[in-house]
Each structure stands twice: as C-alpha cells, then as structure tokens.
C-alpha cells in the first residue's frame, strides 16, 4: 500500500472522522488519498493553515478526541506553528501531519523545504520525521498515543514526499483503548495523608484547572466539594469543570478573578489543586499566594508538582481516578452544614457587580446569550477584554463548553476554534435523513482586533454553513492592551487604536453571512434571541464603549492586597 494511503488508513483506524487542512505540493499524495476516501473521512479545507490548526484544536477541546490537521511543507507547515503552540500551552491533543520535500532533497534548501520538526520541538509534546515507509504506520499510531496519553498535547509528524509515494505492506491494527496509567506504589500513603489533611482543615478551597476538565472528573469534584464543604474556584482553563449554578461555585481565580475568590484564597487553610499548574496569571505574587493554606496538588504531570509551588501533599495521576480512590477515605467526615465557611464565601460572591454605565454593556450581552442557551452550548472566544468578560459573566455549567486560548493567549484563535467546535459537536453523530451532519451551534465572542486577525475564515464558516454565532464586541480599540496602557503607561495609547476602516455590514455580505448591528442595552434581548435561533452563521456587530475595563484586576506579580477594583 502507498504511504499516503497508509496515513489515511491509520487515521481511520484511530477513529478520526474529520481532518482540517490545506493542500500543497508536498501533500498532493495525501490529499489524493483523502479524495478517494471521502466517504470514510471528512476533509475540511480552511482559508489558511492557522485556521485549520485552531480548528483541529477547537475540535479536540469540544469532543475530547484528538484533532487532526494536515498541511504542506514550508509555508504550510510554518503557518501551523501558532496553532500548535496554542494547543501545547493548553494541553490539547492534536496530531499535525506535514508533508516535506523528498528525503533526497532534504538538507539542500530545496523549494519549500523547512525543518518543521526543529521549529516545533519546543511547542509539541513530541514530533517525528518519517524516514522509512516501514515506520509510517507505527509512527502515526504512536503519535496518537502520545497526543492522548497522560497530559495531552500536540504531536507533529513530518512525512517526506517520497515516503508518501513509497509502497509498504499494511495491516490494520484496531485502536488500542488508551491506557490509564496506574497509580504509584506510594499512592496509598499519599492518599491517606491527603484525607487526613482534608479532615483536619476547617477552611478548604478547591482550585480547579483544565486537567480536571480533560480528566472528565466533574461528578467526582462535585462530590468532593460537597463532602469536605469546600467552595470551588476555577482557573480560566478549568471553567465548565464545575457547574457555576452549584452553591459551592465561587467563580474564576486569578488576575481577573472575582474579588471574593482572591479573599478566599488568602483565608483558606487548605487549598486543593486539581489539574492546575499555578500559572503566573493565577497566582500573581507567589510569595503572598494562599499564605495560610496547606497545599494539596493533584495532577497527572509529575513535573507540575513543585514547578511553581511546593505542595504540602501531592499525588500524581488522573484526577478522576484519584478522587474516586480518595473519596472512601473521607468516610466519617463531619458534615459541614449551613453557616460553614463554604456558604459564607459563596454568599460573599459579588458577581457582575462591575457595571458599565454605557449604552451597551458587554456583560449584559453575555448574560443574555446564557439566558437563551442550553447548558451544553459551546462558547469560543478570542483574546482580550471580551475573553475575560466572557469568563466572568457567562456562567459555564458543563465541561468542554468553553473554548479559549488560555496559556498562549492567541488572538485569532476564535474563528478557527469555533469552526472546529461545530464539527467536534458532531463527532459520532449520524447524518440525518437528508444526509446533513448535525453540526453543533457555537457562539464566538470576539473583539475587533482579534476578528481582524483571522476573518478570512468567515469564508470557511459560510461555505460549510456552520452555525457559528459571532458576537463581535467592537470597542474600536485593542482594549486589553489599552487597559494596561491606562494603568501602567500613563494613558499613552500607542498602537492600540487601530481605527479599522472596515465596513462590517459589507464584509458580512461579501462572505454571505447574515449581519446585524447592536448598539443599545434595550435591544440586546431580541437581537441575541434572534441570532441564536437562526440556523445559519450570523455576525452580530456589538458597538461597545472603548473605555470599559475588565475588573477587578490584580496587577501582574502582585497579590490580592493590590487588587484594583476601580480606576480612572
């Protein structure tokens, strides 16, 4: 069998239903095989490889399956880099396949030759270049295994053109069910120490990260929180991992976390950290973070333990598996009923207290979207103020419903990611009687700056008729950067007022997308309702003030004492 066909057969073997990509000289053979296999695997072509990489990432975030992206050598491969790095920082399983010039041409600066394994080494969990067609199938299988196992992440496979064209025997191997790594030998002792600590503390707080979402530990976290009487705060990546409507939910932690959360962090005597990594955006000042707490760190990646914070107790492994083992050890835990610290903290929550006095409040838009959305609604964002308002104001209920670039903070992520989200929601669903696949609706919250980065993907959305509801929160500035200029650069607004001449109505029309403008609070309800009930993509152009801020804010490297709740 031809190498290129082996690639497709291996993808199908792995249960891949959709691949995102863009063709070119070095992947002609792969795309030819995709063409021949179009009844067995869907290929979605984007406008740009970056969009395809973000789509594969968004697909994975929503479905929990590994996203796949294919690009040609040289510029096709380099265009993937931002997308791969975005997935890497947020531990998202993606397999990227790039073509390369044939082996005899490698190292000669051949046309469209680039050392993509060298370039992506720091931003992949692992990468491969296949130099012998006999290794091709095993490399692809291994790539999926690496991408999905332990702490997930992107893996890149570079396949020179002559390898795609070479012949080799191929035998199907049914996909192995992913191994869950067994717990350490010392796990029993560690678990009982943790149980002891949880029983003896009086003010426990749970800090939940993206790892808990990946692990699918939602039910276990709820049980733990209720048993030990702990309020639960989520990092940006953890949002959705614990239902916001649960009485113990207290909202997001970190730089733009709720004020009450940061107070709780200061007061708690035990901080239980589940699948989170103490990022600088969460801690601010390491020295003053959770000063009174014993820290329990549970994470699948041993290297996270002690990387930023030295815990008092820890255990490494899958969060869900560990919580299941921990739970029986908490037997006989005194119940902490009404009036306990969890209630007190939860009651202090002052969510949504930062109101803007402008004509159109972005928070109201988000709350209204929530009001008209089922709990499984997927919301994707770009990066900036609009992202933080979404994190603060949209009360996420379910895991894998919030699709945002946390670690890398990639503007331009949202468009590709929401494309991937639509397909990801269709994973495993059968086409209806008319042969249409039921793509899931996705709400995209974007900003004017981010939107301009990858708006070329409107073509992909329109072409595929994807139900992406784009809410463009247009403050006509690079709001988040401008906010920092207000606070730390004496209001010198260098390059943050792009004054785009774009006519968004005409733009939407050009791409064949329905457009509506939203300018005042009193119209929010009807416009949002209409947008969400529509079956097709829509662009809702929300004109908001350039002066609104994301509050509260803990300046970088600072502690809760330095929290800014108002300025100007």
């Amino acid at each position, binding site marked *: 069998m031809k190498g290129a066909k082996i690639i497709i057969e291996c993808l199908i073997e792995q249960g891949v239903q959709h691949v995102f990509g863009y063709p070119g000289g070095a992947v002609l053979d792969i795309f030819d095989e995709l063409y021949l296999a179009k009844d067995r695997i869907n290929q979605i072509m984007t406008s740009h490889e970056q969009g395809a990489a973000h789509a594969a990432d968004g697909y994975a975030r929503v479905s929990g399956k590994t996203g796949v992206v294919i690009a040609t050598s040289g510029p096709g491969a380099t265009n993937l880099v931002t997308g791969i790095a975005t997935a890497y920082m947020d531990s998202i399983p993606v397999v990227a396949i790039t073509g390369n010039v044939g082996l005899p041409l490698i190292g000669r600066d051949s046309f469209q030759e680039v050392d993509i394994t060298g370039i992506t080494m*720091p931003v992949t969990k*692992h990468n491969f270049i296949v130099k012998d067609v006999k290794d091709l199938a095993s490399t692809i299988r291994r790539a999926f295994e690496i991408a999905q196992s332990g702490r997930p992440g992107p893996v890149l496979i570079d396949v020179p053109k002559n390898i795609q064209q070479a012949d080799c025997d191929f035998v199907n191997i049914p996909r192995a069910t992913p191994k869950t790594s067994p717990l350490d030998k010392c796990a029993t002792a560690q678990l009982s120490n943790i149980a002891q600590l949880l029983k003896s503390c009086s003010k426990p707080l749970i800090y939940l990260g993206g790892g808990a979402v990946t692990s699918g530990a939602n039910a276990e976290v709820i049980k733990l929180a209720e048993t030990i009487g702990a309020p639960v705060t989520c990092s940006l990546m953890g949002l959705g991992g614990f239902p916001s409507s649960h009485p113990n939910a207290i909202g997001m932690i970190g730089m733009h976390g709720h004020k009450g959360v940061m107070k709780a962090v200061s007061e708690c005597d035990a901080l239980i950290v589940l699948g989170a990594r103490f990022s600088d955006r969460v801690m601010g000042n390491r020295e003053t973070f959770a000063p009174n707490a014993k820290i329990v760190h549970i994470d699948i990646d*041993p*290297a996270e333990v*002690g*990387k930023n914070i*030295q815990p008092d107790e820890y255990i490494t492994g899958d969060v869900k598996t560990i919580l299941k083992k921990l739970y029986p050890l908490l037997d006989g835990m005194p119940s902490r009923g009404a009036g306990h610290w969890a209630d007190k903290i939860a009651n202090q929550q002052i969510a949504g207290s930062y109101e803007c006095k402008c004509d159109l409040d972005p928070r109201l838009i988000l709350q209204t979207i929530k009001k008209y959305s089922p709990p499984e609604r997927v919301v994707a964002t770009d990066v900036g103020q609009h992202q933080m308002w979404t994190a603060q104001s949209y009360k996420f209920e379910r895991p894998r419903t919030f699709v945002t670039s946390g670690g890398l903070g990639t503007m331009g992520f949202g468009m590709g990611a929401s494309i991937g989200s639509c397909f990801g929601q269709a994973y495993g669903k059968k086409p209806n009687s008319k042969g249409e696949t039921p793509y899931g609706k996705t709400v995209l919250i974007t900003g004017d700056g981010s939107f301009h980065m990858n708006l070329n993907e409107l073509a992909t959305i329109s072409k595929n008729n994807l139900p992406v509801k784009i809410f463009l929160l247009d403050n006509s500035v690079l709001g988040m950067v401008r906010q920092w200029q207000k606070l730390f650069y004496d209001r010198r607004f260098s390059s943050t007022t792009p004054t785009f001449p774009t006519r968004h109505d005409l733009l939407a029309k050009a791409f064949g997308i329905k457009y509506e403008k939203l300018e005042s609070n009193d119209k929010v309800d009807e416009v949002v309702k209409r947008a969400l009930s529509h079956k097709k993509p829509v662009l809702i152009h929300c004109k908001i003030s350039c002066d609104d801020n994301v509050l509260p804010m803990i300046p970088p490297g600072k502690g809760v004492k330095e929290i800014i709740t108002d300025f100007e």
Partner: protein
Amino acid sequence: MSHSSHIIAALVRNHSGVLTRISGLFARRCYNIDSLSVCATEDAGLSRMTICASGDEATIVQIVKQLEKLPDTVKVTRLKGIDDITRELLLIKIQYSPSQKSDIENAVNSYNATIADRSASSAVIELTDEHDKIDAFISIMHKYGIIELVRTGLTAIERGKNKI
C-alpha cells in the same frame, strides 16, 4: 566541580535529534548545563547521556522530571558523585624548553598521565581522571605554555553491580 553541580545519567533512545531535544529543553527552561556527554551503550538502540547541571535542589528535581517527560527518555537517575566513578578525559598540548622536560615528566608520572605524542619542544599529554584532578593538572601545565587543550565532559557510572 562547584558544590551545586549535580550529575544526571539518562538512557535515551538512539534516534537522530535526541541530543537537540535535550539541549533544547535545557536552553528553553534556562537550566544551567556544565557538561554533557553522549555515547553508545551495550544496547544499540540506546544512548547514554551524562549531564552535569548546576542549580538548587528544586531545579535539579525539575530537570529530572522534565527529562522523564520526553518520549525518547527511557530512564533518568541522579548520581551522587561520591558513590560513583566519574571521569573526564583531557588531551593537552604544551610547549616546553629542554630544561623543563624532566619537570613535566614528573608531573605526568605523579598524575598517572601519559604522553601521547612528543616532538622536540611540544607534547600531547593524555589524562583520564576526576574533574578536580584534571583542573589541577591543567593549572600545573599553565607554567609551560598550553598550546591548546580539549577535554570531554564528565562521564560517570555507579559503583557495584547495579545498573541505572
């Protein structure tokens, strides 16, 4: 070797690019690497690296964990230095006048070094020893004028019958 220098032995898959992955990891995370030596092993599929890194205890623990995360890594161990045999190889080319010849031979003998090549006014001396001994020998040779020197990084193996 400074007292905060630690020896890490790693067995890694013998692929092209493994060295880049490991040195890249050190550069990217700002770990200080004092020396790194790589060699083939009794198993053709594996290479062994001896890495000397400096930093506080927490940093070294992180380095080991980060190395363990690489899919090409098979095993990583910290060697304790005193319990292990550590060696470096020095090749040093010196020039000397006829009157200095016997002094040099004495130094060579007392360090158990050998003269690998000799001409009328120069010699290449070979010494295999621990890091500090090599430093000491080099400082003696400074008296005679060093033309050039090369030394391998440190390589190490555990005493006794255990394998890493």
